[in-house]
């Protein structure tokens, strides 16, 4: 892909400066821009949303001249499956390879008050003075089991600066479908003996992940059996690509290097531009529908027509630009 011209800017010069400047820092792989980027992307103030659009434009494929180079990895699994321990081990392994890592930890919020307790970062073991690691806890927002707009946008933006961007979500079943719309590689974490994932896989409630991780391999027989059952289920579903990897964080740790390699292999075999393009279009449609509802979709002639319109737009355009295009179309 050749370098595209700078996309048109939505507003006057002095208002642009904040979002565009943060975007430019990310593009220059300045990792210290990450907190500012998140603070802006999470904001719902209308002027901040304009700045967010400016930020995303700066890190769009059109402006980068390619897809953002970072590997976006979705890691999802039920509570207690050992995700935090696994993430600590992965973090260590990636840092040893010299890769910078951003983690977006999505916690379920309290429905009643809207408040949330974001406790995950305390469970992830990392060096607070290491500038190559960024961890941000975010609440899931208003959609059940979903990702907030900010998390999806942040994953795309941070992939311009960080080598690896992890989105960690809690749940199993429907929860990972939203992650699948933004991640390059999906790993589902299962603890030995829990039959849920197996059932969900067989019954088709759950999409087949790219990698399945069985934690607590130190438990011995039960871990071996879980791994065998999952492999058998995958074979019967005709999936040969999905690797099932057993990991243990107890000393001596095992399986982590294998997992890192499996994630990397998946990424290398992936048609990245296609997957990212699909992700952006899916995100744009979801955002549009959330904002304008069924009425907005019918103004475009229905969901299928909207998808067709998106398919005809610039493949290098970022999500806000795609949404804006749909909105213009609906207004005409």
């Amino acid at each position, binding site marked *: 892909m050749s370098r595209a011209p700078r996309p048109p800017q939505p507003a006057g010069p*002095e208002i642009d400066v904040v979002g565009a400047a943060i975007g430019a820092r990310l593009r220059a792989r300045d990792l210290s821009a*990450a*907190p500012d980027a*998140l*603070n802006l992307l*999470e*904001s*719902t*103030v209308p002027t*901040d949303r304009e700045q967010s659009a400016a930020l995303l434009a700066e890190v769009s494929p059109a402006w980068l001249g390619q897809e953002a180079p970072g590997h976006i990895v979705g890691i999802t699994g039920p509570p207690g499956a050992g995700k935090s321990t696994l993430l600590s081990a992965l973090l260590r392994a990636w840092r040893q390879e010299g890769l910078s890592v951003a983690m977006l930890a999505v916690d379920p919020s*309290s429905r*009643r*008050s*809207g*408040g*949330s*307790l*974001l*406790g995950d*970062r*305390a*469970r992830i*073991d990392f060096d*607070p*003075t290491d500038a190559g690691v*960024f*961890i*941000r*806890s975010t*609440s899931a927002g208003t959609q059940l089991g979903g990702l907030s707009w900010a998390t999806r946008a942040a994953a795309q933006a941070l992939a311009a600066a960080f080598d690896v961007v992890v989105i960690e979500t809690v749940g199993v079943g429907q929860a990972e479908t939203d992650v699948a719309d933004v991640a390059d590689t999906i790993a589902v974490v299962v603890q030995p003996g829990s039959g849920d994932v197996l059932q969900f896989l067989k019954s088709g409630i759950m999409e087949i992940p790219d990698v399945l991780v069985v934690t607590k391999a*130190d438990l011995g027989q039960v871990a071996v059996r879980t791994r065998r059952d999952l492999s058998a289920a995958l074979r019967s579903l005709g999936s040969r690509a999905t690797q099932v990897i057993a990991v243990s964080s*107890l*000393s*001596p740790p095992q399986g982590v290097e294998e997992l890192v390699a499996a994630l990397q292999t998946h990424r290398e075999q992936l048609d990245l531009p296609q997957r990212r393009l699909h992700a952006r279009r899916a995100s744009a449609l979801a955002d549009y529908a959330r904002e304008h509802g069924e009425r907005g979709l019918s103004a475009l002639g229905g969901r299928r027509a909207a998808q067709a319109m998106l398919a005809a737009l610039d493949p290098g355009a970022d999500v806000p630009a795609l949404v804006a295009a749909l909105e213009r179309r609906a207004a005409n």
Partner: protein
Amino acid sequence: MGATRPYNGCMDDIRNPRLPERDRPWMMRTYAGHSTAKASNELYRRNLQKGQTGLSVAFDLPTQTGYDPDDELARGEVGKVGVPVSHRGDMAALMDGIPLGEMNTSMTINATAAWLLALYIVAAEEQGVSEKSLQGTTQNDIVKEFLARGTYAFGPAPSLRLIADMIAYTVEHVPKWNPINICSYHLQEAGATPVQEIAYAMSNAIAVLDAVRERVPEQLMGQVFGRISFFVNAGVRFVEEHAKLRAMGILWEELGRERYGVSDPKHLRFRYGVQVNSLGLTEAQPENNVQRIVLEALAVTLGRDARARAMQLPAWNEALGLPRPWDQQWSLRIQQVLAYETDILEYPDIFEGSHVMDALVAELLEGARAEMAVVAEHGGAVEAVPYMKGALVDAHRERIQRIESGEQTVVGQNRFTETEDSPLTADGDGGILVVDPAVEAEQIDAIRRWRSERDQAAVDTALTELARVAALASATGDAAENADTENLMIPTIAAARAGATTGEWARALREVFGSYRAPTGVGEAAPASGDGELGELRDRVAALGERLGRRPKILVGKPGLDGHSNGAEQIAVRARDAGMDVVYEGIRLTPAQIAASARQEGVHVIGLSILSGSHRELIPAVIDALRDAGVSAPVIVGGIIPDQDVAPLRAAGVAAVYTPKDFDITEIVSDIVALLAADAEQSRSDAPATVA
């Protein structure tokens, strides 16, 4: 009455309701230690002269968590809540002139209990006293550290192995030692109801005994069971509290007979020491704490069948800061009046035959058995730590809400609050002990000198051997399969003799066992209903969120080594219930960790909690780290902060300080929201200037 139940009293004649001979009083102790081994030794000797009959050693937090005074994490904590003991030289100085063959010493030490017992054994050796004759107790209860107190060092499996090794060692070599004190004390401090206190303590004992059973010959189990003692709490509802202790005695005997096949009545006896409740002591009108302490002491002394073996009482001013020797003397005198002036030691059990007491006990037993079954369903006490922690956070929140609403009366705090000025706190020191900040620097010099003067090769050899033995069992993480592997006490005692330090011993084990963080419990806490005050607060939080562009976000954490996290947890849960995003970081954070989290998480405000007295050093260090990281968010501080320290903290940049007298958590969260709203208003009016 004699027809339906056997009479257990010691008298022959029912018309004479007295014991033939007055009972001997319980062991009287004062939980003490601060600054240095030498200063603490002087304090101990004076306390013994005053009629105290045993010692209770308070260690400082670095010693409790396995760090030397010159470790980064020890900053601000050296000599604060107890005495630093880093090597055998410190232990010898601490026990100088105290005959260890005769003394009965209780040590509040858990994660590093094996190490401190080793130092004690070596100190006795140096006095020419054999370990065979040593008497005392190491607290050594790690499950409650995960649940309530926070001074753990290793994960559950290696911690249990250390405990089991210690028990196996002492049963054989230090036969008069109580190697573990199962603590229900701290559970009550963390908000446990009497039923929870009984159930969790008993479940904890089961976990320990099951682990030991794998490491000692079956025929020793009776002796092992007999060496397990308890450390309990007693609150001001002293009738129910007494019933609780009777219930524990019954459950304990049952457990011994049924689960461990113990039959010797001597081994089956429920033995406990006590420190009465600190949670209920108030900062407001602190003199009222004296009568609370007296009534609580009655709970554990009134009935002969469930009387404490040893007692230590808190001081009237513990909610204000560290008690001075005079404050502690007052508490010792309470014990002495009770034992030597009143007649409670002259009678057999005065509740024998009381229908009310029996019914109370039966009620508690029923509740405790049900709760023990829940813990067992979770896979036992170790596996159930997250469940129990969540239940404690919930119970504590309910207690606070009862006090906030006035449903539960706390005299001088939420009722009868009119007061005259107190002459007790009028002195320049505010009525508390202030540890000289120079102590830390002295201890750092001292330990460096110690390291440079010892035989380094001998220390290295000893630590290598310690690591080798530690690695033997942790390869599988399963103590059960390694019953015949070498006991960790052996290389631990060798390292103590060689002159290794507390930090070196713990580091060698951390390298083998790995690091560990206990669950925080706040994630499991149930959401509150949004009635009344909280509903109004939620509206304000929502409005603030509109203005800020995202939900108000608070970081709550505890710098330093202090593990008392109840206050921080309650703030975190209430802020969540009010609709805020809460990043709860838990305990033992360095300033660098707090600064990195605040920056990365983009929080609007930072709440820090410290109860160990290290706030004067740590809070300014955290604020410096925050500002260096480019975080300008306001910092609020809660904890045991004496009045005279508030102004210096404000000067260092703290926006607000909260102490135990601010018991209304909703009000604190409301204050924080108001602070953020004022800041948002300010930056809005500033905004045009920055854009232009």
